[in-house]
């Protein structure tokens, strides 16, 4: 046989394992992910839904689950656990009424503007109504728990961590990224250093900040003494304790936002900036008119990721304050964890579901109303 032109074996319809795999590749590629997500997300979701409707009780030789209907939710929203979940309602003063009415007005104005814009659709309307309802609920809840004699429950504490924490983190991270995008020496060094907190385990951060925040034996003691705060115990003050948690959380997550925002700043087209500079724009104008519009889509996406993760906060309040003073720093995840520890499985699942509901409404609203819109402008 002529050896010169041996054609490679025909690659047509083969047999055996690899050929079978290739023919079914479209399923093989996606099935592992689908199966594990189904098994570990959908399955627990359904079990949790069932658990949240039952009461768990240890019984001889095991346990029993007794059907409880919506009693677990009822307890959280209206019953004995209301103070714990929604918070203690104070007496709403005239200022509180103004805030609530103002909030309602703003939300209605936002809805009306959508309806008269001519772009209104059925699905969009339903989505916006849900967003508006939850939004108004939060405004009312914030007002009554902040009023005289009121106190936060775990829902408001979580929202506090999410909103205040994420805002602080974004502001500082963007500032740092802008500093690092300047023509500085040692950018590589600063980039690595600023990224480092992301590597530390949140439990470790919590203990670290407990050491640092120790007013009498911590490293900042001279500073506290100087200002006469040496005897103040932040752990006994609700707001101070919450702020310590936010500081610890921020210390870690600024790193993440920073690195993404810096990458966004570094990848924006140089021509546009130079054109603006030639046309007479100063640094602030370049930022406002050129840089910011370019990085907004990235900012929106990274903040969506951050907000999703922020809803799950548990390690920091658990270690730093153990939820205290009282329940002042208890996030919803921690609340659910405590419930689980006291074998209130139904209550725990109910809190988890409430958290899921709030997180989904807020994240999906944020995604549809902010992220998508920002991206649409660039495609």
């Amino acid at each position: 046989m002529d050896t010169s032109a041996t054609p490679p074996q025909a690659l047509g319809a083969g047999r055996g394992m690899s050929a079978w795999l290739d023919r079914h590749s479209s399923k093989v590629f996606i099935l592992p992910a689908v199966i594990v997500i189904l098994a570990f997300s959908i399955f627990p979701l359904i079990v949790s839904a069932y658990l949240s409707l039952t009461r768990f009780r240890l019984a001889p030789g095991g346990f029993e689950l007794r059907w409880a209907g919506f009693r677990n939710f009822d307890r959280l929203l209206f019953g004995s656990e209301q103070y714990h979940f929604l918070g203690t309602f104070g007496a709403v003063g005239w200022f509180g009424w103004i805030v609530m009415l103002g909030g309602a007005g703003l939300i209605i104005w936002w809805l009306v503007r959508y309806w008269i814009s001519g772009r209104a659709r059925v699905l969009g309307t339903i989505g916006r109504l849900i967003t508006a309802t939850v939004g108004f609920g939060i405004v009312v809840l914030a007002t009554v728990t902040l009023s005289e004699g009121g106190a936060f429950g775990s829902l408001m504490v979580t929202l506090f961590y999410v909103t205040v924490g994420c805002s602080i983190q974004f502001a500082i991270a963007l500032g740092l990224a802008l500093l690092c995008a300047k023509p500085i020496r040692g950018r590589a060094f600063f980039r690595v250093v600023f990224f480092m907190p992301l590597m530390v385990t949140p439990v470790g951060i919590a203990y670290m900040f407990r050491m640092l925040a120790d007013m009498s034996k911590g490293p900042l003691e001279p500073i506290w003494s100087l200002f006469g705060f040496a005897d103040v115990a932040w752990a006994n003050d609700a707001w101070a304790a919450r702020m310590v948690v936010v500081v610890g959380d921020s210390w870690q997550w600024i790193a993440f936002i920073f690195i993404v925002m810096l990458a966004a700043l570094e990848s924006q087209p140089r021509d546009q900036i130079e054109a603006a500079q030639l046309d007479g724009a100063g640094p602030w104008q370049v930022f406002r008119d050129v840089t910011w519009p370019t990085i907004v889509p990235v900012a929106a996406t990274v903040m969506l990721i951050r907000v999703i993760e922020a809803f799950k906060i548990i390690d920091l309040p658990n270690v730093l304050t153990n939820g205290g003073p009282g329940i002042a720093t208890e996030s919803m995840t921690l609340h659910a964890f405590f419930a689980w520890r006291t074998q209130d499985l139904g209550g725990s699942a109910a809190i988890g579901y409430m958290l899921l509901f709030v997180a989904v409404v807020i994240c999906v609203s944020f995604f549809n109303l902010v992220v998508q819109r920002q991206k649409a402008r660039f495609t």
Partner: protein
Amino acid sequence: MQVTLDKLSKSFGPVQVLHDLSMVVEEGEFLVLLGPSGCGKTTALRMIAGLEEVTSGRVHIGDRDVTDILPKYRDAAMVFQSYALYPHKTVAENIGYPLKLRKVPPPARDKTVREVAAQVQLEDYLTRYPRELSGGQRQRVALARAIIRRPAVFLMDEPLSNLDAKLRVHMRSELKHMQNTLGTTTIYVTHDQVEAMTLAHRVAILNHGRLMQFDRPKTIYRDPANLFVASFIGSPPMNMVDGTLTSGAFTGPGFAHSLGKDLSIGPAVIGFRPEDCSVVAAGNGLIPAEIYSNELIGDHTLVTCELHDGSAAPHTVTVKMDKDFEAEMGTEIGIAIDPAHLYFFDQGTGDRIRV
């Protein structure tokens, strides 16, 4: 306004990309900086704009030394190769942005934007976004954004290179007309010699960061200063044949040409443009050769002829002949050249030898 470059140099680390560039661009002049990629022309333009630091030398716009002031105080407008339009602003906002920065009140701004948009035929697109425009329209937005400022100088960095061939020809004439109407000093960077020849009042040819020749397009074509300019300008380019120039005669492969002037240079190059020579029967003409290939272009035929210089790779010259010219490949022929259109260059330095 006049733009004066005084011994402008630029180094990126150890690499010097621009060597002592000095030139005076007259008021109202359309100057084209021409050269192959990497010759330093864009760097020079960016230095005039103030986007690139000057390593040494000075830049003057009018009678003002602008070397050490920020771009925004230089009163120069630039059109970028990528157009650098702001994707999130409408056409009107893009065009009006320089005025907004100068705090021109909105009514006056709108009026000016409309006027300028009319000048570049963009009136109907003012509310669109750049992504909704074609390449030519985007290009015009970039132009309008430069025009609206009435700057002292226009700087243009290959503004037509992202357009397709047909549109480029169209925009070229519009650009020329517009510059003529406005009478604004313009410095235009390109690597396209046709653009340079058609647009410029004067062309500055750069190579490896050095100014090769600075003159009117016609002069540059007819009277190139050196080997580089001669071979860079012209399409197809000037034919070059190596040889030696001793005692008043140039000797090349299979031919000799007497200059009628006693010159002894040594290794030299003889150059002639394709349109200045013709194919004649074997034994006639100056240079003996054979037909390598011929291509009918349309109104003329390009005949590639191979010289008998004994080298392995075919050494060819191009001759522009009438559209009816026909010849078998491999036919022995001669190439006749008008002696008035022969150019001689020093092979070592590349300098023109004037005879």
